[in-house]
């Protein structure tokens, strides 16, 4: 019995040590140069672009995921299970493959060309970064929100409606406040994943300095040119942001494991 407990603890602490050592290697070495790096125009550009694209794509994910999650959670659709599974495809695809699919869709099909004609250019552009982040993350947010909405008794909405609420009002006055924590957790997760998205962004938007250079792309470019200082700086910024969002997630996370179980 004691041996069993000891074994479990040793594995846990070894893993913890390993993670801290690996992340710390970059973090400790990158942190001193961080202030200086934030004055380098290319890094500043990457930070700004990353923040901009990740916020916009997270907002788009929310706009699309909320109604979709509500439909999947509440309506008796024919083939609801199949629809839910198919909507999870981007979640299970390697992001690089998602990027290839997006590139071929927007670059080689009539639909992509039609969008280009009305001014929506996604290939090798900033909107392409947003599109790639959106495509990769929207399924995850749908899954989180669907779980959160399902955890709210639908009869609360029924009662609200007998008291005079329209379906939309019943949702905003009853269900939305009750899924607040799940929603915030989902948004933090979506945003931090968007911030770190590389594979799909690389395929659709390319890795073009001062054009589609997000922080992960910046790491990739600096790695390929051997600029270790800039690489450390970009990586450290991403680690910092991840740690902050992890802390925010933990704070908002009362009862979270159940709600994020879909991920």
């Amino acid at each position, binding site marked *: 019995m004691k041996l069993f407990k000891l074994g479990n603890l040793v594995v846990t602490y070894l893993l913890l040590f390993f993670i801290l050592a690996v992340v710390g290697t970059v973090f400790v070495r990158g942190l001193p140069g961080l202030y200086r790096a934030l004055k380098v125009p290319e890094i500043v550009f990457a930070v700004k672009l990353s923040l901009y694209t990740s916020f916009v794509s997270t907002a788009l994910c929310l706009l699309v995921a909320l109604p979709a999650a509500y439909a999947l959670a509440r309506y008796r659709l024919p083939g609801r299970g199949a629809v839910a599974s198919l909507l999870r495809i981007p979640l299970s695809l390697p992001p690089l493959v998602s990027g290839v699919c997006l590139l071929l869709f927007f670059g080689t099909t009539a639909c992509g060309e039609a969008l280009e004609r009305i001014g929506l250019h996604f290939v090798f552009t900033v909107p392409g970064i947003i599109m790639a982040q959106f495509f990769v993350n929207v399924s995850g947010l749908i899954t989180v929100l669907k779980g959160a909405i399902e955890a709210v008794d639908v009869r*609360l909405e*029924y*009662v609200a*409606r*007998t*008291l*005079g609420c329209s379906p939309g009002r019943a949702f905003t006055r*009853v269900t939305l*406040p*009750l899924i607040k924590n799940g929603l915030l957790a989902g948004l933090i997760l979506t945003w931090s994943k968007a911030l770190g998205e590389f594979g799909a962004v690389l395929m659709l938007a390319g890795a073009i300095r001062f054009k589609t250079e997000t922080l992960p792309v910046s790491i990739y470019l600096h790695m390929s040119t051997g600029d270790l200082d800039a690489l450390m700086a970009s990586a450290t910024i991403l680690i910092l942001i991840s740690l902050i969002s992890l802390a925010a997630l933990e704070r908002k996370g009362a009862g979270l494991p159940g709600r994020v179980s879909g991920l």
Partner: protein
Amino acid sequence: MRNSLPEAGKLRLSGVTKKIGGFSLQDISLEVAPGEYFVVLGPTGAGKTVLLETVAGIHSVDAGEIWFDGVNITAWPPEQRRFGFVYQDYVLFPHLNVKQNIAFGARVNRWSKNGLEKKIEDIAALLGISHLLRRFPGTLSGGEQQRVALARALVTEPQILLLDEPLAALDPRNREALQQELRQLHKIAGTLTLQVTHDFEEAFFLADRIAVLDGGRLLQVGPPEEIFARPRSAAAARFVGAENIFTGEIICRDGKKFVRLDGALLEVNTGLSGPVGFSVRPEDILLNNSPQPGNCLRGKILICCEGVILQGND
């Protein structure tokens, strides 16, 4: 059309059919008069909650019509019908305190704040929950939650109150108290009330009229005494507590009708003929070891050691 007088304030279901999940309602037709306390009695799984939710407008009907106050409301959504609804397990808004729960309907309907405060105080006093207004639902007992749910439904003065087994989740003491309060409330407010329950005693105590529902079908509608004394089917009889259910055949002799029970003939007062089922309530049985006709009363059955002899009728 509105206000053909006999229809005023009346709830009428006509051939309502609804299938949802494992539950179904089949061809439900009934009328509930204004101010009536109407109880639908049925076992678990009979479709009682679906019936209430359909009346509230939460589920659309597959077939049939629902009329209220002379208006066909079949296509109306719940927010247009605004019938008060109270669930068995209260379903209070967990993120709102008691006062906000009660005020919910009024806020949605943009009542003036002054009138609302007074209204909430009055209804909270009536239900004995004035001291709970700042508490959250999670901290309340079952009885308290049920009173809050009632207050929330009543504060907007709905024209119909729908109660889904409102006493089922309560302990016996609370149950009896709330049962009395429901009757009082109904006397005061005079709201047409449609309640479902599986408890015959509760139905008997509260109802002006009872409908027996089983397997999604209405078996019988009538005043409690009639349902109790003259259940029209074996299922209804069993549901109102009849234990001794027999089958036999109506026999005519000398212009009187009899049914055979064991070796004896029971005189019955019925319009039926041919094979029938019938029940004998325990309180109508007399036990005696002297099988003399004079030892029995009219309407009772005398049973002695050797068997049953005929006495009385009905």
